[in-house]
């Protein structure tokens, strides 16, 4: 082997880089998928869409609501997926009525997936009972 020292050093760097991800997660500790905590408002048994849809496409629905409410003036309520109740088309006054905690509901998955939506730049999250101050 020629230039043995350099080649081995290079290979070592390569291996460390390639395997560092595994190592990082081994040392970083708990890396289980967190489950969002869900507190449904009394009487509500379902969300406005099926869970699968909400998981993947809630942002699309929120954008759609936003356009409907602000731009088209369609402020009528929507019914839940099982048709039981009506929900206001609003993040603050609709969604967050049921999902009362931004930290426990929204942030859990968003942090896990490293998603930082800019909703909360304007919209106010419900007051979190844990620390008593508003989360905005």
């Amino acid at each position, binding site marked *: 082997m020629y230039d043995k020292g350099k*080649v081995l050093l290079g290979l070592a760097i390569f291996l460390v880089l390639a395997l560092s991800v595994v190592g990082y997660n081994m040392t970083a500790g708990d890396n289980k998928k967190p489950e969002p905590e869900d507190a449904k408002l009394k009487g509500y048994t379902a969300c406005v869409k099926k869970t699968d849809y909400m998981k*993947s496409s809630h942002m699309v629905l929120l954008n759609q609501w936003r356009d409907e409410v602000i731009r088209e003036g369609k402020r009528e309520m929507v019914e839940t997926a099982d048709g039981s109740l009506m929900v206001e088309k609003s993040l603050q006054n609709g969604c967050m009525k049921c999902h009362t905690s931004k930290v426990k509901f929204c942030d859990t998955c968003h942090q896990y997936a490293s998603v930082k939506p800019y909703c909360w730049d304007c919209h106010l999250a419900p007051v979190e009972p844990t620390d008593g101050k508003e989360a905005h």
Partner: protein
Amino acid sequence: MKVLRPIIAVIALIVAGGVLGMSQGTQMLVGVILPSIAFLVLIVGIIRKVIDWSKSPVPFKIPTTCGQAKSLSFIKEDRFDCPTSKSDVIVRMFLEIFLFRSLFRNTSADVKSGDLPKLHYGPSLWLWLFGILFHYTFLTIVFRHLRLFTEPVLPGLALLEYLDGFVQIGAPVLYQSDLIFMGAITALFIRRLIMPQVRYISLGTDYFPLLLIFAIGATGMLMRHYFRVDITAIKQLTMGLVTLNWANPGNIHPVFFMHVTLVSTLMIYFPFSKLMHAVGIFFSPTRNMANDSRAKRHINPWNDPNIKPHSYAAYEDEFRQFMVDAEIPVDKELPSASAAETTEEVTA
């Protein structure tokens, strides 16, 4: 058409990934086992290749120069195009790896017909431009994917994602790197198709990686913007991969498995293909050597240590009599009789 078979191959891979990703039973196969094997193949393959390369000697010093070598003090030396010191070589390698310098120096010759046909040499930078855009956006995309492989997510990734999605288009936000990446790779592919001289020298192995990577990008973007797969379920799977804690994938859209199949193929294909230029660049003798062959002696690495150097003087000493007999001119004449005698006397 040399491009046809790669197209068929990539389509077959997409179909296979999609079909296997549709049922829970085979999802494990394509979502967990395949990428794990592929990663192993990638690592082991690269190491094997590197060891193989490092065993192959470079017989002569071939530090290709593109500028004035170090010479007399009043002649301006071109340090980085004709480096003589190790540090200058490092600079040249840096420029090569990070800025693709030799590609930047690419020229093309063309003849313009007119009243008098003119031959003209000029820089040809499109290949460099699309190449560098492609590589850097690819790097960005790879870094961005680390959010699926680290928990807690690596610090700094959030900033990268923010900058990459700075122009807020759509939700989830469109990454600028994705757009540039797809544009650049399309341009590289089209270049191979429409330029006659490049098409002539292109083989299936040139088209295949381009198409494969294009398909990876396309499935990735479809996943994000069209099907909007459940990202947390995917992260559960990918985290399982890197913590060696293989979980049965949950309910994930088949397009994800297409993506994974294609990426796995790329990883398996990588060590056995032209894509190894990523590693090979470190081994390119025309780039990684200093032009110091006049200052330092370069010993042929495959020399047999038992064969001692044999200089011309020694050769002549050995065969002088025969040479003189054959009337071949010699540097040193045969010792004359008188001279021989005096020598003998002295020695005596």
